[in-house]
C-alpha cells in the first residue's frame, strides 16, 4: 500500500501519506459503524436472532416516524432561522471597515467559546416563566400571565438557532468575501437596482456558502441532544433522546442501533438534497 514504485510518475502520488489517516478512519469510524449496523440486524435485545425486526418496528410505527419527522422538521426550522438572521450579518461584515469587522467576527465567534450547556442554561433563564422576556412584557403591562416559552417548539428553535449560528455565519462570510465587489458596480452600471443585483448576482454567487452553512447548521441542530432535552423538556421527543432512551435506559441496543442507522440515512438524504441543490444552483449562477 505505502511502497513507492521504483520508477515514479510525477503525476501519481504514493498512497503512503494518506494511509495513516485512512487507517484511523477505518478503525475508529468505519469499523464501529459496521458493528452498529451488524447489531441493528438482530431481533432480540440479547443479539442472538438475526432479522430486520428492528427496522420493521421503526418504519411501521407512526409514533417512531413522527419522532423522525419532527426532528427533521426541527432542523429545517433552525436552519431557516439561522440563514435569515445570519445572511445580513455576513453581508454587513463585507461592507464595514476593519474595526467593525473585528467586532462582528468576535460576536459571531463568541458563542463558540462558551460551552453549549452554559449557553443552553442561559436560554432557560431568558425563556422561563420569570425569565427576562416574561418579566419585561409583564412590567410593560403587555401580558398578565407569563407566556409559555420554555418547553415549546418555539423555544427549542430559538435556542438552537443561537447555539448553531456561527456554523452558518462563518461559511457565509467566506463565500461573500470571494465575490468580486466590482460585480456589484457592474450590475448597477448596467441598470439593475440593488434588490435585482442581490438576487441575480450576490445570492447565486454566495450559494456555495449558503449550502455549506445550511448543511452544518442542519446536522448540528438535529443532533443537539443537550439543547433539545433541556429546552424541550422531557415530553418533547427528538431522535437523539429517543436513541438515548432505548440504548441507556432500556438497554435495547439493537433497536437503538437501528434508530441510529435510520437517523444517519435520513440525515445523509437531507444533506445530499442540499448538495444537489448546490450543484443545480451553480448551473443557474453560471447562466
Amino acid at each position, binding site marked *: 500500500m505505502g511502497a513507492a514504485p521504483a520508477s515514479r510518475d510525477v503525476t501519481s502520488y504514493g498512497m503512503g501519506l494518506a494511509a495513516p489517516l485512512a487507517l484511523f478512519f477505518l478503525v475508529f469510524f468505519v469499523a464501529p459503524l459496521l458493528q452498529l449496523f451488524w447489531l441493528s440486524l438482530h431481533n432480540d435485545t440479547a443479539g442472538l436472532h438475526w432479522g430486520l425486526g428492528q427496522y420493521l418496528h421503526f418504519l411501521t410505527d407512526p409514533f417512531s416516524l413522527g419522532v423522525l419527522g419532527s426532528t427533521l422538521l426541527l432542523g429545517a426550522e433552525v436552519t431557516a432561522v439561522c440563514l435569515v438572521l445570519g445572511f445580513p450579518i455576513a453581508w454587513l461584515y463585507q461592507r464595514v471597515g476593519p474595526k467593525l469587522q473585528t467586532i462582528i467576527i468576535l460576536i459571531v465567534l463568541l458563542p463558540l467559546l462558551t460551552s453549549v450547556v452554559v449557553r443552553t442554561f442561559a436560554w432557560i433563564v431568558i425563556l*422561563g*416563566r420569570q425569565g427576562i422576556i416574561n418579566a419585561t412584557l409583564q412590567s410593560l403591562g403587555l401580558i398578565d400571565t407569563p407566556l409559555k416559552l420554555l418547553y415549546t417548539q418555539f423555544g427549542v428553535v430559538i435556542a438552537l438557532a443561537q447555539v448553531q449560528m456561527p456554523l452558518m455565519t462563518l461559511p457565509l462570510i467566506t463565500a461573500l468575501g470571494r465575490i468580486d465587489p466590482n460585480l456589484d458596480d457592474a450590475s448597477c452600471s448596467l441598470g439593475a437596482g440593488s434588490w435585482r443585483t442581490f438576487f441575480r448576482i450576490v445570492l447565486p454567487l454566495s450559494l456555495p456558502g449558503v449550502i455549506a452553512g445550511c448543511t452544518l447548521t442542519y446536522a448540528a441542530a438535529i443532533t443537539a441532544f443537550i439543547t433539545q432535552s433541556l429546552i424541550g*423538556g422531557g415530553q418533547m421527543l427528538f431522535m437523539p433522546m429517543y436513541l438515548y*432512551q432505548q440504548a441507556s435506559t432500556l438497554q435495547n441496543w439493537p433497536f437503538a442501533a437501528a434508530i441510529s442507522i435510520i437517523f444517519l440515512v435520513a440525515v445523509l438524504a437531507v444533506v445530499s438534497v442540499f448538495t444537489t441543490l448546490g450543484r443545480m444552483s451553480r448551473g443557474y449562477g453560471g447562466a
Partner: protein
Amino acid sequence: MIMNRRSLLTTALTLGAMKAFPGLSFAQARPLVFATFTGSWEEAHKAVLVPAFRKANADAAMVLDPMLSVDQIAKVNAAKANPPIDVMLHDPGPALVAVGQDLVEPYPVEKSAYYKDLIAEAQEPMGPAPFFQVVGLTYNPEAVKTPPTSWADLWKPEFKGRVGITNLNSTLGTGWLVEIAKMRGGSEANVDPGFKALEELKPSLAAVAANPGALATLFQQGQIDISPGNFNAIQILKARGVPVEFVAPKEGAIAFKTTIHIVKNSPNRELAFKLIEAALTPEVQTTLMNPPYLIVPTNSKVTMGGEIARVLAKDTAELKKKFVFQDWKKINEQRSAWIERFNREIKI
C-alpha cells in the same frame, strides 16, 4: 536490538493502544474504580467514603468515576471479561438488570463485619444497600402556603400550571407513576390507573423534566412550585438558599434502595469488598446522615438525628412504617412498555 522507524512506530502504536484500551495490558495493576452517581452522591463519596476507605486500607489507590447506573451497566457489558469498573452503584431497577445480566458477584456476606447490622430491607446478597433515597413531595414554601400532605394534592386546582414531573427515564419518574397508580387502585403490575391520573394532571403540568436534575433547576427558575422530588436533591437546593421544602406524603414516601456491587471479573475484588465494607460502617453512615449530605442510613446501629429524624423517621421502626418499598422486579418487566406509552401519551 536495532531501532528502526518501523519498530519505533509499532512500539508507539502499541503503547497508545494500551493506553486507550487498558484491557490490552497483560499485567493488571490499575487502581480500584468506583462508579458512583454524579452530583450530590459524588460530593458525598469523595468527602466521606473515599477518605474512610483510604484510611482503613493503607492509602490504596482508587478512582471515583461518576456516571448514571445505566451507563455503568453499558460500560461493564461492553467489556465483561475485563471490566473497567470494580464497584457499581445502582438504583433498584438497574440493580436487577445488572444482576440479571450476570455482571455482579454475590457479596461475601460471611466475611462481612457489618452486613448483619443492616436493616432487613438493605440486606441484599448480590450487593447490600448502604444508602436509601427517599422520594416525596417537594414544594416552594413561598408559593405554596399550606404544605401538601398527599400525592393527590398535585391535582388540586390551585396548582394549575405549577406542577413539575420527570419522564420515566429516571427511577424517580417510574417509581412515582407506580405510586400514583397504587393510590388509584393499581399496582406494580397494573399502572393503567396511574396513566389515567397523569392524563388528568396534564392541565396542571408546567413541565416534564428530562431528568431529576432538571427538575431541581425548575424550582430555582420559579418554573414550578410543586413536584414529586428526591429528598437529597432538595437538600442541595436548600443549602444554596432556594426556597424549597420536602414532605413525606401520607401514602408513604417511596424508598429506593441504592445498592453497591462488586463487578464480576473485577481484578480488584478484595479492595472492592473493603470499599463496600467502609460504606456499611456506622461511622461513615453517621457522617453521611449529617448535613450537608443527609443520606438515610441503613445500618441499624446508627441513631437517626437532625433533619432526617425531623422530616423522615426517627428510628428504623418508624422508617419501615413510613417508607414504601416497590417491587422493581415487577416494574422492570413492563418498564419499556410504560416508557413508550409515556412518550406517546404525555404531550403538554
